[in-house]
């Protein structure tokens, strides 16, 4: 009778069943989707972290920034420019230095970290930025002479592509910066008015990319633990002292480089020996280029030491205590655990994460509460409408708990149906989200401005007198991102069995709550009173 009655009620009161089930389904669908997408975002975050710090890295140590370290400067001496015959000087300079603010740890410090209890492995790296200046300047001497003549000279020898004319004609110029942004080369175009009075007539590019000095072999911790070789080979200890470089494959693609290409780093020509891509789903590895650490030190004028220490803890649960132990040994260093690192990641990825963890969570909770409340109200309403039915059953000798059980079962089945429909909707929604495949951007470890803020870049030094460029010639936002690592991660969400179980569980809970609400009302009905509603 129990099952017959249950089946009859669910099938023959289809509207009630559908409304309660759908109400729960919508709540469950939302919870499932939010939870799946939020898992996806979490995965993306860990992908980014893995790319940045290595899969096995539990703790990352950097030295606190030293004050007074200025932006990169290019010092050009008298003989640095190459003069061409058509009235321009060409200047090229590639500069390799540690990232702004970074100072190094010496070997003794690394040894100290190794000695800390709970440290299973240590990897080190020297993080550098290579900045290249390449451009042409007007030859002021020649210009002056020519202006006295016919006053209009065409600048010819352009190695970058800008055309520079006489004093009234516009000249093209570009500042190109490269960071690890998806398209590492972005250009801000401005049109200075060139002239012999020193106002412009100049075009140059500044490119910058990240360089990581690493010690040879591949470790289970550190930046090289999260890369896969796509072509060529990795650096080995045999590369020490050699101008060999391994490139991030995305960077190599955008720069049109391949194995055996030449790359200028710190004014030296390096040979590309290999290309690497991230092991995880992130689009880029932690650095654009990887070179032997001793070469890096020499070129960057760093005597010894490393900027980054990557630590693998013996026990994943002991990360926090190990990090405290390291902090005791290195009181001045910045020690970040993977959890801290996650919070350091900014950009749309972290926005999405914040959005999901706050708005998404609350939205789910609210919708779920509404769905539960609706299910309860509809069930109670259903019980009220069935007062006569339940009164009759009581008159026929049905015990109250038999009726309550019946109401409860109806609600639970509605909950299960709602959970299943909700999960299906959730799967659909997640499939749509994945089909759209939103690309989230994560920025991590950005340093301050490069070449100053809104006032436009001023590159002082040597005999290079900067032209009086219009303010904002260097997009300060772009510039500020140089040195930061920006990753694009395609969001890929999936509903895990755990999420599914949780969804169905919630739906059943909703059903139980609704059934309890309805059942309590049904139980409270006194048989005589329920019969009185007959009239």
């Amino acid at each position, binding site marked *: *009778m*129990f099952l*017959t*009655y249950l089946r*009859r*009620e669910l*099938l*023959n*009161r289809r509207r009630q069943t559908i409304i309660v089930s759908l109400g729960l389904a919508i709540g469950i669908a939302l919870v499932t989707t939010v939870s799946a997408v939020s898992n996806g975002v979490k995965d993306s975050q860990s992908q980014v972290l893995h790319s940045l710090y290595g899969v096995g890295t539990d703790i990352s140590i950097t030295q606190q920034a030293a004050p007074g370290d200025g932006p990169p400067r290019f010092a050009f001496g008298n003989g640095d420019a190459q003069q061409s015959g058509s009235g321009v000087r060409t200047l090229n300079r590639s500069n390799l230095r540690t990232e702004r603010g970074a100072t190094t740890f010496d070997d003794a410090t690394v040894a100290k970290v190794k000695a800390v209890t709970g440290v299973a492995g240590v990897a080190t790296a020297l993080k550098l930025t290579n900045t290249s200046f390449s451009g042409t300047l007007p030859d002021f001497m020649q210009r002056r002479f020519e202006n006295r003549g016919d006053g209009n000279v065409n600048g010819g020898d352009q190695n970058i592509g800008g055309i520079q004319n006489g004093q009234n004609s516009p000249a093209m110029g570009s500042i190109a910066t490269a960071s690890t942004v998806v398209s590492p080369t972005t250009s801000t175009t401005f049109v200075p008015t060139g002239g012999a009075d020193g106002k412009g007539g100049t075009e140059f590019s500044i490119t910058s990319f990240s360089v990581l000095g690493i010690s040879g072999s591949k470790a289970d911790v550190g930046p090289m633990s999260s890369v896969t070789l796509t072509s060529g080979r990795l650096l080995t200890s045999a590369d020490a002292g050699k101008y060999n470089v391994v490139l991030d494959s995305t960077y190599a693609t955008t720069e049109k480089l391949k194995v055996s290409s030449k790359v200028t780093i710190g004014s030296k020509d390096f040979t590309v020996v290999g290309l690497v891509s991230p092991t995880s789903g992130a689009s880029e590895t932690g650095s654009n280029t990887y070179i032997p650490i001793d070469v890096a030190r020499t070129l960057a004028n760093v005597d010894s030491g490393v900027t980054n220490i990557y630590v693998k803890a013996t026990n994943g649960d002991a990360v926090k205590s190990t990090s405290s132990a390291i902090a005791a040994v290195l009181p001045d260093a910045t020690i970040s655990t993977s959890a801290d690192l996650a919070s350091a990641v900014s950009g749309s990825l972290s926005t999405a994460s914040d959005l999901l963890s706050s708005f998404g969570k609350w939205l789910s909770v609210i919708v779920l509460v509404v769905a539960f409340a609706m299910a309860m109200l509809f069930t109670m309403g259903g019980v009220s409408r069935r007062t*006569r*039915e339940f*009164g*009759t*059953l*009581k*008159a*026929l*000798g*049905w*015990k109250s708990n*038999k009726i309550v059980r019946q109401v409860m079962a109806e609600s639970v089945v509605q909950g299960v149906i709602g959970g299943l429909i909700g999960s299906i909707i959730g799967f659909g929604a997640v499939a749509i989200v994945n089909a759209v495949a939103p690309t989230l951007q994560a920025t991590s470890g950005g340093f301050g401005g490069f070449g100053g803020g809104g006032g436009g870049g001023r590159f002082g030094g040597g005999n290079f007198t900067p032209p009086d460029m219009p303010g904002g010639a260097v997009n300060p936002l772009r510039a500020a991102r140089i040195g930061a690592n920006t990753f694009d991660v395609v969001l890929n969400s999936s509903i895990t069995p755990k999420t599914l179980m949780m969804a169905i569980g919630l739906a059943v809970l909703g059903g139980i709550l609704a059934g309890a609400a309805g059942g309590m009302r049904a139980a409270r009905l*006194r*048989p*005589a009173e329920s*019969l*009185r509603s*007959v009239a």
Partner: protein
Amino acid sequence: MEYTTLYKLVGVNKVFKQGSKEVHALRNVDLTISFGEHISVQGPTGGGKSTLLQILGALDVPSTGNVEFSGRDMEKMSSRELTEMRAEKIGFIFQNYNLIPTMTAQENVEVALAATNVAASQRRERAAAVLAKVGLADRAHHLPSELSGGQQQRVAIARAMVKEPAVLLADEPTGNLDEETRDEIMELLETQASENNLTLIVVTHDSAVAARAKRHLNIKDGVVREV
């Protein structure tokens, strides 16, 4: 002497509170009903007919006074025992039939046995047999909405009969039926009652229905009189 008393009511009062007002539904009712009696209960609306039926049907308890059913003091019975008593001994028939709208005729009859310990297979057999007795064998798998009023009341009678009760309590059983159907239903009730030696208590406004009974009660302002 053979024990023949089914109900024995002594000094039964029933008072309802309606807001601040007290409504005296039954006043000092003394009543003895024997096995196999056919009784009609008449009286104006609100006079206490339904209240009396509910007390006889163990759906409600008196405010004061004593009710004995088959020699058992109902006051001393737990609500569980009262429920069991309803399940096994009392058959209800309602003016609106009160069938469960989502269930077929057959299932509606089985519902009455679901409150007892009768096994599922037996429930089906017994329900089918009783439905055949009330002339609805061919309608067993129809929903109430597919049946006429008379047919629905037949199902309700089958539901009341299937447990083989001691008493049938009918509250305006023909109130919603036309005269022809009314007579058919009353005949069915009477045959069923006499064949099974059941006490039949019919509350009605209809004097034609009341006239068919052998004993007539009238309730007015909570006072029961023999007519």
